[in-house]
């Protein structure tokens, strides 16, 4: 029973419900400030929190309809559960990793070097066939953007001011 096809969508729906409950919890801790004509700053968020719980609940109901259809063959053409493509988590981890490295490093090594790393990381995540070429082209792209935006007056962090 652990393999019912709607389970991923159901987890997501549960997540949405939890989000609504967290919101509701935070609303109860807001100081009841300038309530005006019975509508304080808590009122509208309360509606939204309720909406999250209700819409998440509706999605959960919809997902659990596939319960009992453990065999995916039963579900041909069932519009309740989207087909699951084969995932390659290597790509996901590489993109995530370079993004996190980028945010940690950009203040230290400047925009150009951090963007070079990021661009090349994404190229590798997407399984580029031309690793050496893309290494150089990523650097070129980062440098070109740095200088273009310097001319446009957008301040970007640099390790050697005005150059890199």
């Amino acid at each position: 029973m652990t393999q019912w096809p709607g389970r991923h969508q159901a987890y997501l729906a549960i997540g949405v419900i939890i989000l609504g409950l967290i919101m509701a919890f935070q609303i109860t801790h807001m100081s009841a400030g300038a309530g005006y004509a019975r509508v304080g700053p808590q009122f509208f968020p309360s509606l939204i929190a309720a909406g999250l719980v209700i819409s998440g609940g509706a999605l959960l109901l919809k997902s659990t309809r596939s319960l009992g259809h453990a065999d995916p063959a039963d579900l041909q053409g069932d519009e309740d559960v989207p087909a699951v493509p084969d995932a390659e988590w290597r790509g996901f981890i590489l993109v995530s990793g370079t993004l996190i490295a980028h945010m940690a490093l950009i203040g230290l090594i400047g925009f150009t070097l951090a963007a070079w790393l990021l661009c090349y990381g994404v190229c590798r995540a997407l399984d580029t066939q031309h690793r050496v070429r893309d290494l150089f082209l990523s650097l070129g792209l980062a440098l070109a953007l740095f200088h273009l935006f310097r001319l446009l007056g957008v301040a970007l962090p640099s390790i050697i001011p005005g150059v890199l």
Partner: protein
Amino acid sequence: MDALHSLFTVGFATALTFSNLLWALIGCTLGTAIGVLPGIGPAATVALLLPITSRIDPTGALIMLAGVYYGAMFGGSTTSILLNTPGEAGSIVSALEGNKMARAGRGGPALSTAAIGSFLAGTVATVLLTLLAPIVADLALKLGPAENFAIMVLAFVAVSAVVGDVPQKGFVSLFIGLAIGMIGIEEQSGQARFTMGVLELTDGIDIVVIAMGLFAVGETLYTATYENRIVSRIEGIGKSIWMTKEDWRRSWKPWLRGTLIGFPFGTIPAGGTEMPTFLSYSAEKKLAEYPEEFGKGAIEGVAGPEAANNAAVTGTLVPLLTLGIPTSATAAIMLSAFQQYNITPGPLLFDTNPELVWGLIASLYIGNVMLLILNLPLVGIWIQLLRIPRPLLYGGIVVLATMGAYSLRQSWFDLLLLYIVGLMGFAMKRFDIPIVPLIVGLILGPMAEKHFRRAMTISQGDATVFLTRPLSLSILSLAALLLVGPPLLRSWRKMRRPQQA
């Protein structure tokens, strides 16, 4: 004809200045380029340009952003016809027949009928916008806060119930957007909401971070995880780019029909261009002279949907300019561009900023001509863009996204937010949850709250005000009908089906 008078005296006088022509050209060129490139759409591009446009005057900036919006629709058709991977939602249908035509060596006429149809539809729709907008604006002046709130509720319901495969997902998306919109200091009371004590969150989460996260980072994560192995083939233009006499004969009616289908759909909050393009496609299929050609490359199947697509984009400007209500993701981000200059789109805009409104509308006429030239004789340039290797393309998109987010405050915190929103976009794409309701909720939510409180203040806390005013009641009833109507209809059909069988 007050409208025509204002268009020619104020509008073209503004739009035809050298700098505004230049902004229009930059916008159209940029729009076509990003429309051609898969992976980044008009909404993300407009969001990315927001920080840069804050330095130029509002009229020029909005003319440029409108050019991007328009141009992306023109450029998107090139990608779907030659590559069979639609760059944006409105071009999905064009890929059906257009790519088949290209495979049969008729890529040129397919591109032509798309570009000329888009031009024709865009121009006719702009005429309709010119005539209609002042009338709607006049009517809108009579709306009070209760009615405005009701219209926003209608927009929320329509966008969530109509877009995407199941309404449940639309509403999940909408409420997440509304919730994100609540983060930050609340204007009236100064109360910080949902900041969890994080100082950086008191200003709220910037639309640039949301749009870049959902569209650029989310898209890249998704491609890296699920679509790494897809290999696509670029088709050629074929013998000639131009259409034969026969092509013209078969195209002009679908162009006009597409325009008439597309424009009204743009003006109502039904989430943009997907619905009208599909409707136009099925209409052409039914009316076709040679129905057997459908599925093998019928020119009508490109001409109609492309016209519908562009007419719908122009149609979205009617509610945006006259009511301040966005009906698509790009329109929502355009609205935040107005807000950036402290300009509130709405009925008063035609009185307070006539140069801006009429200049913008006049620039649409000019932009359409520019786009026809950019996309037909110069189409060869854009085809070269299709040859950019995908890894580098996505690498560049992610770099631009991080740059947009970082340049807001020079803080790594926005990069963290960008990544978190990107994870959200990844999950939404994985589970087929539409993004449009989230963006519309995010931008309209705080405005809806403002109108709600204003209405409650006027009525001295009496919530029945929304139901006792006839117009507000009818708008809210319409919203309720949209909410409960389709499921009721479906279960009624289900009940009948077993009896018939």
